[in-house]
């Protein structure tokens, strides 16, 4: 593989007196899925917010394709080709699928008005490519099932991400069939040569999807393992700290 898409070095994040993240370093390569695991409050979501620009790090450097970047707000990550599928999906429920797909980045026609035709066409194309089964691009989000909503959020991230997709517990609220569908979509994203950082509490999922596993405990990076060269017992021990590595 070539240069890392994302490179985090010695990241530290303080909230007032509390240290949420310290000494965190990680690289994500194109076409690679890295799983970020750890117990509740370990700092996983905080890390996602650091990479997406919501919370600038207190110290440390973030580099994208080898170039250090300053992340100072939520639009910075997007400008660098990083997309996030938030745990709550961040969808506007009463708007259509295609409006959500282009939320904040609506294309305009030559009169400076919304180019609905283009939004609908691109949405339908993407939805077909990813095999997200929704009734139509015109459907209202609140009329969709949980899995379909998740599909829309992932499709949106896929559409816009040129480099990296962060997924914060993408299957936490889903049933068995819908989880399988989302996992299938995540695996298919590897072909697009973007890097993927996925947060999940399901170790089965971690071993099914990831190439490498990064374990966090109470804000500290415990270690990074290649998925093929480790097993659940080792990862559980790292997460809980019951057996120090």
């Amino acid at each position, binding site marked *: 593989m070539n240069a890392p898409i994302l490179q985090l070095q010695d990241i530290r994040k303080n909230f007032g007196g509390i240290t949420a993240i310290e000494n965190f370093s990680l690289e994500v390569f194109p076409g690679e899925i890295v799983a970020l695991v750890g117990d509740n409050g370990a700092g996983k979501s905080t890390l996602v917010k650091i990479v997406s620009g919501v919370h600038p790090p207190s110290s440390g450097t973030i580099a994208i394709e080898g170039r250090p970047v300053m992340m100072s707000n*939520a639009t910075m990550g997007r400008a660098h080709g990083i997309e996030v599928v938030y745990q709550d*999906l961040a969808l*506007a429920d*009463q*708007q259509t699928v295609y409006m959500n797909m282009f939320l904040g980045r609506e294309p305009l026609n030559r009169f400076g008005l919304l180019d609905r035709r283009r939004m609908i066409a691109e949405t339908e194309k993407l939805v077909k490519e990813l095999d997200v089964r929704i009734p139509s691009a015109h459907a209202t989000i609140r*009329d969709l*099932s949980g*899995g*379909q909503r998740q599909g829309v959020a992932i499709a949106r991230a896929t559409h816009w991400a040129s480099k990296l997709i962060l997924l914060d517990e993408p299957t936490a609220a889903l049933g068995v069939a819908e989880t399988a569908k989302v996992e299938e979509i995540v695996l298919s994203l590897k072909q697009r040569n973007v890097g993927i950082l996925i947060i999940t509490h399901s170790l089965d999922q971690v071993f099914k999807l990831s190439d490498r596993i990064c374990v966090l405990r109470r804000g500290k990076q415990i270690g990074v393992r290649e998925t093929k060269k480790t097993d659940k017992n080792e990862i559980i021990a790292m997460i809980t700290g019951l057996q120090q590595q």
Partner: protein
Amino acid sequence: MTSANTDTEVGSFASRFNLQQYVVYLGFLAIFLFFAFMLRDSGFLTVRNLSNIVLQTAPVTIMAIGLVFVMSAGEIDLSIGSIVAVAALAAAVTIASYGMAAGIVVGLGAGILIGLINGALVAYVKLPSFLVTLATMGLFAGVSRSMTDLRSISVTNETFTGFFGSGSLLSVPSLIWWTVIAIAIGHLVYRETRFGAHVLATGDNARAASVSGISVPKIRLAVLTISGGLAGLAGLLYAGRLQAAKYTLGETDLMTVIAAVIVGGTLLNGGKGSIVGALVGSLMMGMLNNGLILMGLSVSDQMIVRGLIILTAVAVSLRDKSR
């Protein structure tokens, strides 16, 4: 994802044809037919009476456009009635000494300024719009009373009263021009621009809007400023039509405007609305006023009937929301 498919299609089919979207048109038609039949000998159906209804509702329609933007963004503006009086009085006083152009600038400027104050307090001090505009409603009701010691100020500038009131262009009354132009622009901005889409997204899910790069505070500031400016314009229309301004102008309009907007299919909690619906809602309220007067109902009975209709409208709106 597959198993839910059939359910969803039924769901979206039902919502596409849900009552809420059409209630304003059905209601409008029902009330029109009711009055047309009941008042067939009292002059309800004359061209003169019907065009009077449109002329009288022009200020309410203009304010309703602003409120559609405000409510779609998940906010409320209770101060519009007070803005009407302040803007009308400010314009009337200014016209008397400095002429028409200055009067228009001062009247509209007063509305925009109050809207900006509301908007800044909501967007940047992060106070709820309900409380902010409740306070400015009271504050500016006081200001309009003290501005002229409760006196009425007459407007004698004929260019002004023609432009904003009794005049006409191509034999269409100016108040109808104002209504048509404001609705057309309002509809275009609301439905077809990025700004309109961002207003709806903000009211629907402010956090989602924010992580999508939409500046939520700017949207909140903008909708309340638009509402203030349009209430200022409504004040000019009142001053033009009545050829005078008084602190009582707009006093009772708040409830009518809110009712028109809600009956027109705009949700109280934001994320969904209609400018054309608000126009029909506003005409419906005007028709209701007119018909109830022609029927000879007492003022108190008129208020009761209007209140019941508004209650029905709110019930339909909330029922839809809780699906």
